[in-house]
């Protein structure tokens, strides 16, 4: 297959665009149980679709970015925290938040579990018992909060690391550079996860693009960096696992740039979709059928619809 302009360079490939797995990645994929992994990706995608119908102000779809949520949820350990952006809501249910509570928080409603919560931006969620931080409104502030959290890990000396997720547009802000300087100067155990785009049709000024790769910029700052392809959940998992290991081992912050492709652009080829790419793998392995897909989607959509209906206090909708 020809390289498309949305395919990043300089990444270690786990699943190639056709869904073929490199030999080195086979033990990892077996350990992760590919069908379970696929269910998580589909659940994250369907959650995004469901959120699109909620009517949240300033909401932006996250379709195409699910591999980050799935990998972070698998890698985050006890006592470690994720400071997510607004497009990483799927992490919380994967860590154990039930969907009723997720829906209640997304909708900003009071419920049996307590009053309506302020979680920062509309639609954001938080869970102190799961290590999911709220989403501060000032751009980039969650990076510095996460740096403080990581500093506490370092002072405690227990080999824990926390992580923060943000988009490349944030990498021009003062707080981004301040936070990078802080984590580097203090050798703080923080995993910085930057979701970037390649903008083959030209980057807007808001993207804050200096050259093609945020990872290269951060390498120039002296940080440990990796670049991963957001359409390749195995590649993303591998890079983030290395990053968590680096940070937990006390070797300082780790920076992972994950190149994602927004899927709402009709010119984007199907292999840029992390769900489709893993589906192709399952198909090759004889693990995917249309019936499996249909049952999976029906189950997840039913759970989501029930949760949002319940949070709104309405009668549960009929499962589709």
């Amino acid at each position, binding site marked *: 297959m020809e390289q498309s302009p949305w395919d990043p360079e300089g990444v270690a490939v786990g699943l190639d665009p056709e869904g073929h797995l490199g030999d080195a990645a086979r033990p990892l994929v077996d350990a992760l149980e590919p069908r379970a992994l696929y269910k998580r990706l589909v659940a994250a995608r369907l959650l995004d679709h469901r959120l699109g119908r909620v009517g949240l102000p300033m909401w932006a779809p996250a379709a195409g970015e699910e591999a980050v949520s799935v990998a972070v949820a698998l890698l985050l350990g006890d006592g470690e925290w994720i400071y997510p952006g607004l497009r990483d809501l799927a992490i919380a249910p994967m860590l154990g938040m039930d969907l009723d509570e997720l829906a209640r928080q997304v909708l900003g409603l009071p419920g049996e579990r307590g009053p309506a919560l*302020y979680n920062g931006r509309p639609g954001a969620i938080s869970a102190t018992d799961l290590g999911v931080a709220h989403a*501060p409104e000032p751009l980039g502030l969650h990076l510095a*909060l*996460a*740096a403080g959290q990581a500093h*506490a890990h370092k*002072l405690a000396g227990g080999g824990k690391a926390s992580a923060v997720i943000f988009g490349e547009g944030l990498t021009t802000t003062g707080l981004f550079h301040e936070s990078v300087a*802080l984590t580097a100067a203090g050798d703080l155990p923080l995993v910085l996860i930057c979701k970037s785009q390649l903008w083959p049709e030209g980057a807007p000024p808001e993207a804050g693009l200096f050259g093609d790769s945020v990872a290269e910029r951060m390498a120039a700052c002296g940080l440990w960096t990796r670049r991963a392809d957001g359409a390749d959940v195995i590649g993303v998992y591998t890079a983030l696992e290395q990053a968590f290991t680096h940070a937990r081992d006390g070797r300082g912050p780790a920076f992972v740039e994950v190149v994602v492709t927004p899927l709402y652009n009709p010119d984007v080829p199907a292999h840029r979709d992390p769900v489709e790419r893993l589906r192709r793998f399952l198909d090759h392995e004889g693990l995917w059928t249309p019936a499996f897909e249909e049952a999976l989607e029906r189950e997840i959509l039913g759970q989501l619809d029930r949760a949002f209906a319940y949070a709104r206090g309405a009668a549960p909708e009929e499962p589709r």
Partner: protein
Amino acid sequence: MVASTSKSLLRRLADEIASLLRDDPRRVIVGEDVRDGGMLGLTRAAREDEALAARLLGGPLTPAAAIAHATGLALAGRRPLVILPSASALIEGFAALRELGRISASAGGERSSAVVILAPTGPGFGLGGDGAESPEDLVAGLPGLRVLALGEAREAPALLRAAAGFDAGEQPTVVFLPRTLLLRELADEDVPSGSFPRALGAARRVREGDDATIFAWGAGVALAEAAVDQSGHACAIIDLSGLAPLDADALAAAAARTGKLVIVHPGQRNAIAAEVAALLADRAILHLDAPILRVGGADGPLPYSAEANALPTVEAIAAAIAEVATY
């Protein structure tokens, strides 16, 4: 007989900070050059103790990162004390300060935001510009923060200890330290030992008097005392001490006692002074026997040679006292 020792207030605060670190292993110090003693020397005593050095956390020279860094440490259960070089850094780091105040409202209030920020404020070091400004009112307007102003140099160590102990509840706290007070020399016998003599944030009755009541805070308290002496009137002086929340009941009661009120504040316009005037007009209107007068200083930016103009003059305060007392 043991000879009395005189130390600068900065030195006494430095001793108190070292002592706070020893008392609670959760405490850490965040700020510019704190590993080398800090810009004001406030971590010199801590630096001399090897056991404390690991909890002096340096960082980039950026107030927003420093405040958010401390907030993150507090979220994780630490008790950070942020030492800012100037209160103007609160404005530079305003977004982070605002977020600190919001933590208790976010995530169901389950996370800690037990941060104390020390901020030298107003003229006194001969800096002018930012170093002459007193941004207390901008900070006191932010929800979620406890805002305190030191009005009496001798109380500083106990005030710091009470604030860092969160005696009035675990709420992020900004302590404004007037530069005019920080350079005072204090003899041992002038510094009361023991705990802070009143509730954190409670107003302090500096003087009693029936002719008028003067409300002031921070550097304004000493100016009010000098102005009352100069005026020849017997005036009560109230040190607000707590700027957010205001000790509203105590202020209203003090206003009702004389019905003649003067509010002393830095700069030309001041939201705290306006808030106090509105509060007293509301709560003490039936006791008022004269208009509520506010006496301020000059607006900045001021050249360093003229920085003292940021505060009102003793003469202007004395004139206001005479005006209400004889109204």
